[in-house]
């Protein structure tokens, strides 16, 4: 279980000081899939970095399964918003996906199975030997996703992972994430700007306010666990939920303080 309480982060550099997160408290059950939405610049990436142990919070605590997070916890995979920069340009696509698996000390055969399965799942079979910079933006992003998927993590943090892919691929990837989540029981924290996506994917949707950032609202998505692109999105409850989230975000952008 992931518990964030009273999280605060202030960036200081020279004269400039930005309070990215003011006071965040929420928790994610083990094996839960939570989507996080919020206006651009509200601190979602900052939050994810803190949870991953990559950034030192200025205040508050983060606990994963009861232990305070001080560095990246084992079994964590992360898809960075800056997908392009998070791929190593000196490695082929295959090596990029395989490297974390090597760190996990998986045997070679298992690695190669995982790598090709993951690349297949994101629709990149055949590009194994290309370098990341020979791929289109969307393809690069999918390599980053494949890397996380192949890792078979126990906690998966994704920062706008589908921003650069087309609608159809996006739908496929959404289903991929849900399938992975159901198969492995991963805890997933998923940042997106696409409200439909948040509602379609998540068990819960947490909405952040704009800066100074607090939790604006959080809803439980009471849609059936078996979802599919056609029927779920056509569901009346789906529309209700998405409208609710949309309104909250609009409020957040206007700066209405309606903390949950």
């Amino acid at each position, binding site marked *: 279980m992931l518990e964030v309480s009273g999280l605060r982060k202030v960036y200081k550099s020279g004269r400039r000081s930005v309070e990215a997160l003011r006071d965040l408290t929420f928790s994610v059950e083990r094996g839960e899939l939570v989507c996080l939405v919020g206006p651009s610049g509200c601190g979602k990436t900052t939050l994810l970095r803190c949870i991953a*142990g*990559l950034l030192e919070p200025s205040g508050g605590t983060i606990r994963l399964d009861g232990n305070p997070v001080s560095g*990246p916890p*084992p079994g964590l995979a992360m898809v960075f918003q800056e997908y392009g*920069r*998070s*791929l190593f340009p*000196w490695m082929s696509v295959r090596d990029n996906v395989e490297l*974390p698996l090597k760190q996990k000390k998986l045997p070679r055969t298992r690695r190669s199975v995982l790598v090709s399965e993951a690349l297949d799942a994101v629709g990149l079979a055949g590009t194994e030997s290309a370098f990341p910079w020979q791929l289109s933006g969307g393809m690069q992003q999918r390599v980053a996703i494949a890397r996380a998927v192949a890792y078979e993590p126990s906690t998966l943090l994704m920062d706008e992972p589908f921003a650069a892919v087309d609608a159809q691929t996006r739908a496929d990837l959404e289903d991929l994430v849900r399938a992975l989540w159901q198969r492995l029981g991963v805890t997933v924290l998923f940042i997106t700007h696409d409200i439909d996506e948040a509602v379609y994917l998540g068990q819960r949707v947490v909405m952040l306010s704009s800066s100074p950032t607090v939790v604006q609202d959080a809803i439980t998505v009471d849609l059936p666990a078996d979802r599919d692109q056609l029927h779920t999105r056509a569901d009346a409850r789906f529309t209700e939920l998405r409208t609710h989230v949309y309104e909250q975000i609009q409020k957040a952008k206007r700066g209405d303080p309606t903390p949950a």
Partner: protein
Amino acid sequence: MKRVAYVLGLPVVLFAAWYVFSAGSENFYAPPLRDILRAFARTWTLDRLEADVLPSLLRLAAGYTLAAVIGVALGLAIGLSPGLRATAEPVLEFFRAVPPPVLVPVIMLFAGIGDGMKIIVIVSGCVWPVLLNTVEGVRAVDSVQLDTARAYGVTGVSRIRQVILPSASPQIAAGLRQALSLAIILMVISEMFAAGNGLGFTIVQFQRGFAIPEMWSGIILLGLLGFGLSLLFRLAETRALRWYHGLRAAARGR
């Protein structure tokens, strides 16, 4: 064809200009290129190459390799640890500013007068560009790449081998390239002390023996040596940094 023209074009023009302008030179220390070239053919015979150039090259290779290894290893350590950098930098800067000719006697105190001393002299001079560039290259690794490695538990040796070194490699290559020609220079300087053979030794002997065309021919040989080694270096670099050059060339649409 075009590449050959590029490689040879300017040198040919320069040598031609030198040839023409020096043709009537009366100056004892700046003889006509004609004489120098004649001296070149006369001086650098196979025997001479084996007796003087080969030992030099061996020392050069040993010194350069050692400097590369030390420079990269130390540079990694210093680049990764700000604390170590703060502690070690002044001491290193201190030694960096001491001229090799005055350092040699001190080195001789500890290393004697054999090849070991000469190799140490080469190392002591050409480790710096490698070291400095490695330090800067390591410091400049993209933060997102570092975060990615951390998040996926890529730590320790594999973090260094798979992430930090490749990322810093373009700058390390710059250092190695610098060090290559410095190594040749230091090879010459090291052979000015307690040497009995070697290219540098021979050039110094020519200089002292007033064999000026021979001396210039030796300098030309040094240049050729540098050029040859840099070709090898470029070959190695092109292979090792294929991703880097590819990345830059691809986006430039060439």
